[in-house]
């Protein structure tokens, strides 16, 4: 009975006034919060985003705004600029509004890679 009373308001809330979610987020909000609370948990956010994006792509569903780019930035911070560029490109191809920022990020990373390659010659 108690359990039922607890569930009832949830049902009412969902049916009453909550706009249905447009996207699946794969636990992004909670994992980002956890990462801000404890920076060692940013790794868990990366794993979560990787798994979620793979799942969305496998089932041909649109990935929510920003998720590719957030994963790209986590790669960048971990030093993998190739993987970051790949994610920024996917964000740009999925969401035209991100084009300016993503193109700038990609070009910046490519320039850095070229500079490093030339320095190594």
């Amino acid at each position, binding site marked *: 009975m108690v359990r039922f009373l*607890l569930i009832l308001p949830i049902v009412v809330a969902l049916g009453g006034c909550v706009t249905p979610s447009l996207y699946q987020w794969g636990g992004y909000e909670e994992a980002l*919060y956890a990462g801000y*609370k404890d920076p060692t948990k940013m790794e868990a956010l990366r794993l979560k985003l990787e798994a979620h994006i793979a799942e969305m792509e496998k089932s041909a569903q649109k990935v929510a705004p920003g998720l590719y780019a957030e994963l790209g930035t986590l790669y960048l911070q971990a030093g993998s600029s190739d993987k970051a560029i790949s994610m920024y490109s996917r964000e740009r191809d999925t969401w035209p509004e991100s084009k300016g920022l993503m193109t700038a990020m990609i070009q910046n990373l490519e320039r850095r890679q070229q500079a490093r390659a030339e320095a190594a010659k």
Partner: protein
Amino acid sequence: MKIVSSALILAVLTGCVAQPVKQDMSAFHATAPRSILVVPTINKSLDVDAPNYVLAALPVPIANKGYYVFPVNTTKYVLEQEGFYEGERIHQMATPDLAKLFGADAVLYVSINRWDAQYAFITTVVTVEFDYRLVSKDGAEIWKESKRMQYQPQNNNSGSPIAMLVVAVVNAAVTRAAPNYMPLTRQANQEVFISGVNAIPDGPYRPASSKQ
């Protein structure tokens, strides 16, 4: 569990109540932004962790309303690379410059006015309060809203006075150990962006069939 269920009941009670004053949305409609840049928040509370926590809770409701929301952690990272670490400094930048840097149609500024738990005799009141401002890339304010949310564990009044006292003490102890800021913050954002009378209009990605 008790806190979670109480918060839900509270959410139901306060979630759909219409507020009396309806804002003029003509400036918003004239701008019709497609993309929103959510920048790091300003903190006027005493909790140094609040700005990041609040930032994490903003993109999902705004994107679900139909807007492209720039990735908040990437935005924060880019601004830090430019030397901007503090929300206060970012909020002082000219909006057109900021919007241009990211290619955004509008910039959302959020300031945290309250984020605290006040302990009184056998009870605790948790309060969050935010100001929200949306400014177009031309620098014109197109929407604003404020929201305060409070949570106080409710004591069942069915038992004897001593039983009620015990329940109240336990509630206060649980609340004190883990103040319930995030459910309140999510609820504030839900009302401000989605269910409230002054919620922002549906964005371009919200299909017409699901418009309210």
